[in-house]
């Protein structure tokens, strides 16, 4: 019964959608950004320039997809916070594993190369 009422209610509700332009704009931007990130490889940028450009385009693309295609931009802050704060745990994990990776390669160089 309550299901039916909810369905009826939804039918009466005017459609709340966004204009098609916003989706087409984001779509186009994603194409352009993907093209740029491909160009990073095409021109064989190296070192810090390569890494920073890759990360910049990656986060921009991820942000656009989440904000507009996944509608997070229009959601209430509670959902946005619940979804985004756990990412700090991932960032911590990345930090820990960077340190761990450096330590591992250090010991390997010591024992594999110098140890012989």
């Amino acid at each position: 019964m309550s299901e039916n009422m909810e369905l009826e209610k939804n039918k009466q509700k005017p459609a709340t959608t966004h204009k098609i332009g916003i989706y087409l704009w984001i779509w186009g931007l994603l194409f352009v950004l993907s093209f740029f990130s491909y160009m990073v490889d095409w021109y064989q940028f190296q070192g810090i320039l390569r890494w920073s450009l890759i990360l910049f385009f990656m986060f921009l693309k991820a942000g656009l997809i989440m904000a507009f295609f996944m509608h997070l931009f229009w959601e209430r802050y509670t959902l946005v916070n619940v979804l985004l704060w756990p990412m700090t745990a991932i960032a911590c994990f990345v930090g820990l594993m960077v340190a761990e990776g450096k330590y591992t390669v250090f010991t390997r160089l010591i024992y594999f190369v110098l140890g012989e």
Partner: protein
Amino acid sequence: MSDSSLENLPKGWKSVPSDLGSDQTTFKGVQWGKAMMWIFLLSDTFIFSCFLISYMKGRASTVVDWPNTSQVFSLDFMGVPVPLLLIAIMTFVLITSSGTMALAVKYGYEKNRKMCGWFIVATALGGLTFVGMQAYEWSKLIHEGVRPWSNPFGAGQFGSYFFMITGFHGTHVSIGVIFLFIFARKVFRGDFDTGRRGFFTTMKSDYVSIEILGLYWHFVDLVWVFIFAFFYLW
């Protein structure tokens, strides 16, 4: 999306403590299925993060040179090897399908049955193209001698990370394609207009289901953005 009952509630940062401390529902104006999809996607984010972090750790700690992905994934075009060509095409195909999915969600909310259905079909075809190209890429690499334990291009760990990460992502795409076809049929049949009960859940649904499906599909695209950046470009 927006709901008239939400207009009297606090907005902005003030809405966080009031929503979290309120009765009945935390995620105001979010249908329960959508909230569950978001929470599932959050857990999936952690799985993919673990894969990518273990890849980072493996790559950072090997003393052997990592294979040059630019060359490993190059494709001959008219006799000239073009670096990362197949991966670039796959990226564009997946973004295209993400765009068509966004339009399907929009037309769904406008209760435009035909347009919604056809855009879902277009999305599914994009996904199929992507999986097909990935199968081609896998077989090409396997023929070149890439194995989970060794490969002719450099560090032996490369193969295991490649097959694990792209395989898990490809599985997500394949599952998404199956659901896209199922929901295309539901849309064309008018399930979300007539309130026909789902054969598995036995529950009525409306076009919010398309948004939930869209969330999953955009997430698959989102993960590819990170795989493309870290695995192929880095």
